[in-house]
């Protein structure tokens, strides 16, 4: 496959996937066992009774009186103009809520995962190079144990120890509530203080999987001929690891991070919920709690599209740096 064909094929797949995601998202919220109209409308009514004429007016407003295919086209248009309707709970545009919360999720995911990647790479190198050593076995078992822990429970234990018992960090939120910060530095340090525990949780949650994959791909690299040659001609361990092996093992890391992004988002959702960290994940949790379907639908769509596009970019980058991917050598994967 030439790079042009590869690019066209990946782009087509990406567009088809995004379209499929939009279709799934549209129908999911209309296949509900009870009458979808009732579920989309009823939370609006609150406790008071609503007359049939109000109900009809609302249905007309939401476009639910039209045939399904017209509803779909309206939905499609709304998605492309980023119009996800109003939240049931507070009458604010869903797109605005999502935009506000997205920043906090990105901060949490980036900081936590950078920390996690750093530790996973360092430990992965040590473990793979000294395969079968005590360090290798110990890090292998702790990685497996970490991946077996319920993520929200890890956050809960960290909160219990460092916040409740030792009182070192705040329990929830991004900044102190009801306190006006005199300057930016004071605001940022307060934000970082709040970020510490969720970030550590996020890092612990994604460390296990990253370490296992890193160790595996390094084991592959270390068994390659050029590493053996390096050893034979007397290069130092340091040169072999950092100049030859790590460079080649970092390649798969790009795809691994993209593929695991969906998983990381799950981890972020649970971490945010435990620490009441107002990101997209916490928004989804709250939307479920209040049955706020427009917010749930909008947040789910945005998260999914972000993951699809990140995967697409990772595939392009990977195809660019490693031509074997393009030439169809990995047809079976």
């Amino acid at each position, binding site marked *: 496959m030439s790079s042009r064909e590869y690019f066209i094929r990946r782009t087509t*797949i990406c567009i*088809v*996937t995004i379209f*499929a*995601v939009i279709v*799934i998202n549209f129908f*999911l*919220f209309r*296949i*509900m*066992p009870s009458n979808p109209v009732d579920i989309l409308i009823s939370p609006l009514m609150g406790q008071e009774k609503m007359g049939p004429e109000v109900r009809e007016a609302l249905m007309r407003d939401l476009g639910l009186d039209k045939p399904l295919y017209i509803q779909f086209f309206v939905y499609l248009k709304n998605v492309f103009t980023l119009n996800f309707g109003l939240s049931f709970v507070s009458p604010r545009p869903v797109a605005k809520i999502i935009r506000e919360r997205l920043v906090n999720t990105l901060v949490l995911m980036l900081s936590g995962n950078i920390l996690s990647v750093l530790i996973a790479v360092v430990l992965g190198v040590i473990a793979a190079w000294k395969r079968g050593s005590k360090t290798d076995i110990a890090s292998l078992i702790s990685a*497996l*144990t970490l*991946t*077996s*822990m*319920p*993520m*929200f*429970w890890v956050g*809960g*234990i960290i*909160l*219990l120890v460092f916040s*409740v*018992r030792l009182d070192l960090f705040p*329990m929830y939120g991004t900044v102190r509530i009801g306190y006006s910060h005199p300057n930016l530095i004071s605001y940022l340090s307060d934000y970082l203080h709040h970020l510490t525990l969720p970030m550590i949780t996020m890092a612990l949650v994604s460390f296990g999987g990253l370490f296992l994959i890193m160790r595996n791909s390094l*084991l592959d690299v270390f068994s390659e001929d050029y590493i053996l040659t390096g050893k034979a001609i007397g290069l130092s361990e340091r040169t072999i690891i950092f100049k030859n092996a790590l460079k080649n093992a970092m390649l798969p890391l790009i795809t691994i991070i993209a593929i695991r*992004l*969906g*998983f990381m*988002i*799950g981890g972020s*959702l*649970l971490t945010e*919920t*435990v620490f009441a960290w107002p990101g997209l994940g916490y928004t*989804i*949790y709250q939307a*479920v*709690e209040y*049955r706020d379907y427009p917010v*749930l*639908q909008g*947040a*789910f769509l945005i*998260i*999914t599209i972000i*993951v*699809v596009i990140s*995967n697409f970019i990772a595939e392009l980058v990977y195809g660019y740096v490693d031509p074997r991917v393009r030439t169809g050598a990995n047809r*079976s994967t």
Partner: protein
Amino acid sequence: MAISRTDLLKRRATDFLGQFKESKLGLVGVLILCIFLFTSIFANQLSDFPIKATQGNLRDRFMPPNNKYLLGTDDVGRDILTLIMYGGRISLLIGFLAAAISGGIGTAIGLAAGYFGGWKEEILMRITDIMLVIPGLPLMIVLAAILGTSFWNIIFVISIIGWTGTARVVRAQVLSLKERAFIESSKAIGASDLRIIGVHLLPNVLPLIVAQMVLRIGSSILSEASLSFLGLGDPLSVSWGMILHWAFSSGSLSSNYWWFIVPPGICITLVALGFTFIGTALDQIVNPRLRRR
């Protein structure tokens, strides 16, 4: 004279057991699993404390571990050790059922894609890719929120996102089996597609499927715990995830009632770890791609 089919199976089984005994981690996994199966199955013999929320002793609520309640009590005065033993039943059951169903879906899709090839394969694998790229937990949450929370809905929601791995592994294996001579000769003598798939392909990919399923049990138990924690569990069945949900929602975290939070999490971790150990040990034996290592 050719050896009979049963002899062959027997030899394979002894072979397999011999290899499995080599794996220390696999044996640790079996041991963990046996302990939890025992306490779950005999929960009603091992404890006489009630598990219904209405039967708790409200005067004894939130008691730390003591001689009467070995692991303390919860927010309605139930014995936590008893809850955990009963919780194991539901957690393990959901894990087994969800893994079996997702294994079934994955096997069917993987076999069909690998065997038929062409546009059928293209469509099935594109669907698999789309499922793979949609973030699992958010999808489970959306589905659970829409379908409502019940025992079977939870299992359905976990199964529907968990089949992609099996589908890919099965397809890859079928692709390499398809080239072998015995499939060619079955086709030549006019065996039907169904017969080739059922009699020749399935038995050959079955060990791989079992290994995948065992690995799925642990992650299904973890998924159930996450859904329950988020308030999407079945409120009528006591699972380890539900116990943690009650612990978090009763404010036990900020009140430092650690005995309500720590034990259920340890149980989930141990069981998930046990299944990972067993599954990895099985995979090492049966997966030709891993045998090298």
